[in-house]
Each structure stands twice: as C-alpha cells, then as structure tokens.
C-alpha cells in the first residue's frame, strides 16, 4: 500500500467553504423537524409516506455509494489486481455515502427514539423486507469502517495493529461484498408489497435482481466519475487506461439489465403503458435513454477511449440508476386518491446539507490519510 499518499493541499479551500455554508443552512430545518414533526418541513403525506429523504438519501444514495462494492468484486473476487489503486478511494466514498444515509434515516423515521427496536429479538420481524435492509445496511456501515481502518494505522509505530487488522481483512472484504448484494437487491424488494400502487412499468418480481444489477453498474459508473473528477479538480494524472478497461464491464451488465427489464414488460403485456403519454411514460423513456446512451458509447471501441465520452457515459449511467430509483419509489407510485408529492424546499436543503457533509468528509480524509495513489507513481 506504499503507493497511497495523502493529497497535498489546504483543507479550507473555497469549494469547501461553500459546502460548509450549504450544510449549515440545513441545521434550522432539522431543528424544526424535530420540534414540530415531519409535516412542518416536508410535503410527505399519508399517500406519499416516503419522499426525497428515503428515495434519494437511502435508496439512491447507497446505490451511488456502491463504488466500493463494485471495486471489491472486481479486485478480490475476479482477481483483477491492476485496479487496486482505485479501491481505497472508492471505499471511502462508499463509507461516507452509507454512513450519511444512516444518519439521514434518523431525520425521516417518525419515532426515531425507539429505532433500536428493529434489532431487539422480540420486536424484529424477519418477514419484513425493511428489517433485512436495516440490518444489512447497519452491519455494512460497520464493516466498511473496519475495511477502511488500515488507513488510520499506516504510519511508523503502528505496524503491529496494522498487521492484526490486515490478517482479518479477508473476512471484512467478503462481508463487504455479501452485504450490499443482500440489501441492494432488497431495496428493490421493498416495493413488491405495494402491488398495483406501483405502475406496471416498474412493478415486477424481478425488482430485487434489477436493483442489484443497476447498483453494481452505478458503482462502476461512480468509480469512473470520481477518478476523472478528482483528476481534474485535484490536478492529478488520470488513471485512464485502467478506467477505459473498467468501462468494458459495464455494457455486459447493461445488456443483462435491459433484457430482464424489457423482457419482463413484454411478457406481462405492460409495454403498451409507454404510450400512455403521461408523466410516468415520459420518465420511463428518459430513464431508459439514460441507460442506453452508455451502452452505445461504451460498446464503441474508439469512443470509449476518449475521456469526454467516458465521463459522459459514466455520468449518464449513474443518473439512469438514480432516475430508475426515483421512478420506482415516487414517479410510478400512485396511492390511488388525490395525493401529490413534490419535495419541499426544506426537504431539498436537508438532503443538500447531507451531501455537503459527505463531500467535506471525503475531502478531509483524502488530504489527511493515504487514500489516493501517489502522483509520482501513478
């Protein structure tokens, strides 16, 4: 791991300061939520009990944070050691993504003071998909901090501790692959019980498989996106040859995903819903165009080696997965009576605040701990 070094530079830069302001803005809204209830800050209702916080912070946020999961599959399971330089930064982003998702659940859950009930054996309901998701995500957050912990000890005088942690590391890594496989698929299973309240364009028994595949794809997309972004903004050379090789995995996953997605719609006879020309059908088309764009670009040999196209297709892929999640939990969800939902300003600002804290924490960690490959060797 000697090639990983803290990034040189000040922590308090202008972008950092802007993020700090954004996260401070969220505080009064959070206070208001705890004093006057969820209705005081959000547009949530009995018809739309889940809004921006669940759908973005948890369902989409953790999928965006699947970079660590995707890289671990590649490096440790398929033994592609050449991607090793990307592992720790991907893991760090995942760790903060999941940690902040867990924090945001506290804002959303109505009776947060007894949230631990889920884990009390006499209250746990093993029939509940929500129980599976909660137990898995909580464990995974812990596992990721353990997986990342060597970064704290990679300095002189700590060799003993480091060796101890590393000897057990294979267990953490294996758990780090098992747990997202379980909960990313279960996040999809959550909506099966909603039945016909969810439009036929999204409701299917294949939700767990589709959520799992799209989470892995979003993970790879995020790894490409993050490394390219940090190479531009932190003035680091681009690990381009690695990235374009990495992007070769994505089209294969995309083809499997789209075959299941459309095969299911065709066999159930629900594909006609695309032509209902309403908001749902529009969002379905946008979602799938975003999935198809990276498929076309990354299948083309000359285009996938160009940084511009690589960046655009990674961004498109992550956005596609995000739109797929918003569609499945909100756009396609119709509680049947005259309910409407669009996130309130306060809901959006709390989410923006959480994302800001996430990015600030990432910046602090890469500048103080060995996370990214050293510039000279990269």
């Amino acid at each position, binding site marked *: 791991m000697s090639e990983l070094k803290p990034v040189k530079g000040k922590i308090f830069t202008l972008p950092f300061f802007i993020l700090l302001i954004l996260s401070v803005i969220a505080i009064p809204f959070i206070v208001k939520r*705890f004093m*006057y*209830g*969820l*209705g*005081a800050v959000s547009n*949530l*209702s*009995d*018809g739309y*009990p*889940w809004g921006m916080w669940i759908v973005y912070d948890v369902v989409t946020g953790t999928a965006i944070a699947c970079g660590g999961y995707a890289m671990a599959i590649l*490096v*440790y*399971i398929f033994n592609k*050691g050449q991607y090793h330089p990307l592992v720790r930064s991907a893991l760090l982003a995942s760790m903060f993504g999941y940690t902040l998702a867990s924090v945001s659940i506290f804002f*959303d*859950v*109505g*009776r947060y003071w*007894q*949230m631990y*009930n*889920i884990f009390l054996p006499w*209250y*746990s*309901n093993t*029939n*509940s*998909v*929500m*129980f*599976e998701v*909660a137990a898995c995500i909580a464990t995974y957050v812990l596992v990721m901090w353990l997986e990342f912990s060597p970064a704290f000890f990679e300095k002189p005088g700590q060799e003993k501790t480091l060796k101890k942690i590393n000897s057990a590391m*294979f267990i953490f*890594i*294996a*758990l780090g692959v*098992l747990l997202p*496989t379980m909960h990313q*698929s*279960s996040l999809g*299973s959550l909506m*099966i*019980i*909603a*039945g*016909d*309240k969810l439009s036929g364009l999204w409701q299917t*028994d294949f939700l*767990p498989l589709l959520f799992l595949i799209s989470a892995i794809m979003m993970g790879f997309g995020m790894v490409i996106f993050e490394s390219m972004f940090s190479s531009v903004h932190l003035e680091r050379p681009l690990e381009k040859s690695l990235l374009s090789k990495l992007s070769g995995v994505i089209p294969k996953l995309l083809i499997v995903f789209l075959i*299941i997605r459309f*095969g299911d719609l065709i*066999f*159930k006879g629900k594909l006609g819903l695309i032509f209902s020309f309403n908001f749902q059908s529009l969002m379905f088309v946008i979602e799938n165009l975003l999935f198809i764009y990276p498929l076309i670009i990354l299948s083309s040999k000359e285009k996938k080696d160009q940084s511009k196209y690589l960046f655009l297709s990674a961004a498109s892929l992550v956005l596609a997965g995000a739109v797929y999640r918003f569609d499945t939990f909100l756009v396609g*969800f119709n*509680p*049947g*009576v005259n*309910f409407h939902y669009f996130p309130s300003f306060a809901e959006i600002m709390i989410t923006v605040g959480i994302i800001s804290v996430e990015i600030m924490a990432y910046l602090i960690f890469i500048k103080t701990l060995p996370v990214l490959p050293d510039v000279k060797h990269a």
Partner: protein
Amino acid sequence: MKVDRRNFLKVLSAGAVTAAVPDNVFARAKKDVPPDAVGILYDSTLCIGCKNCEMACQRYNKLTAQPSDSNNRDFDPYTFALNKIQIYRNGDKTDKESENKYNFFKKACMHCVDPNCVSACPASALTKDEESGIVSWNSDACIGCRYCQVACPYSIPKFEYGAAFPEIIKCEMCQHVQVKGKIPGCCDFCPTGASVFGKFSDILQEAKNRLALPEKSNYNYPVGDLIGKRSKNNPVEKYINYVYGEKEGGGTQYLILSAVPFENLGLPKLPDYSNAAKTEGIQHTLYKGMIAPIVLFAGLAFTTYKTAKAEDEKGE
C-alpha cells in the same frame, strides 16, 4: 387442453422463465381466517351517510378533532375518526344506489386475513390477533418508518405528520370495548344496520344470504350485530352479486356489499393472494435458513483470502 392466451404464451416462452411462471409463483401458502375471527359487514345500499359511525368512533376511541395531525385529504380533517364516510357522486345525484347517481362508502381498516402491513413492519408493531384476527398497532414497538402506509393496498394507516412524537392511527375494531362484551362504535350507532358486527363466518353467511334475496322484496336487516335484538325492515336493492373482501388480497374481515361497482367506491381490484405472501415467498426463498448467504459468504471469504494472499506474496 384448452389453449387460452396465457397457456399459449407459456408454451411460446418455454425457455424464458419470465412468462412461464404465473404471477404468484413465489408466494408462500395463503393464510386462513382465524376460527374465532370477528368482522364487520358494511352494506352500502343501507347507508344513509349520517356519519353516526364517525361520531361513535371518535367517542369510543377518545379521539378529539385534530385537524393538523392528519393531512390525508381522503379523511375529513374536521371529524377525525378511524372510519370515514365517503360519497360517490355522478349524474344528477337524485337517486341513491344507481351507478350514475350517488352512493356512500364507509372507509376503514379492512383487517386483512394476510395483512401487508403486518408483514412489512420491521419492528412487529402491527400484529394480527391469532383469535379475533384484529390488526392492531403497538406504540412501544413502532419506529415510525411508515412502510405500512406504502404496503397497505387501501391506504388505511394514518401517521401524525404534524406531531413531534407521532403515532400511527388505525381502526382496531374497538377491541377495547369488545373485551367488555360490547360491539364496535360504528356498528352500535349505525341506525340502519349498514354496519353490522359479528363472527366472521356469520357475517359472510349474512352477506351471501342478502345477495340471494329477490330485488324489491322486504327484509328484516339486523342492526348493530347479528344476534338480532334490533332490526329494521327495508326493501332490498339490486345488489352487485359479489362480496368484496371475501377474496381480495387473500381476504378481509371487513366485507362490503354494494349496488354500484366497487371501483366507484374507490376499492381497488386486487388478486386473490396477498402481496405479503408474495414478498415473504421471495425473501424466504432467497434467505431460507440463511443457507444461501452463508454459502455465498464462505465462497467470497475463500476467494478473497486467496487473492489477498497471492497479492501479499507478490508484494514481498
């Protein structure tokens, strides 16, 4: 063999798993109505929309009008009760019962035989009583995740969005007065017998008897409960020959009769199995005895160990 469209598709797609399986192939076994189950029969042809049931509900459950605590537009915010009379209007609104005129519907918890909310709740806050079949909520367990609201096909559970320490609010069939030998408020105070309380097997039989009555004949409709101390003579309307709730989503203990199509009353068309059965079927197939996760973990740990060791040796 009769070749219908479904079978034809099945044959066509013999290789494709997707179509060859019926919609509920993963579903676990259906649940039965508990032997001593209780229930309510709501006959919308008798309902005059007087809202006595809402008033009784408030009184029995000690609910005060809390307009800010529920923002469900489906529930009148000024008469906060666990049931709600809704009006279906169409045409010139002069005549009750006919499809293009008007009708009433009392919306309340259906007390499903295989409730989605009970299956969905991660903390077992919602439970179905093994004897009475009543679905009730436990404030000590609930974490307020509102998955029950997502899962309920009738959008019944209410959450206090306006409260700092919110609760889930739903009909528990006045089980606190049932233990004292009384009947639910909505049935007790219904002047026409539109809502009647009884043993589930009895109300189902009563519903079927009513469907067999000749139109415009006179019938002594029981009022309050089926024991028959009170009754009211009324002419029989032209029923739709169907008991809503007998099969819906695996069955409900709140049964509904109507003279107008059930979808006009806002009742969803549901398959004859519960989505809870389907979800639990899928989850318990994947996680049976935790065998699949354990095997997967063992494989992952072994592979990772080998990879990490090989890398270490390369590094040294």
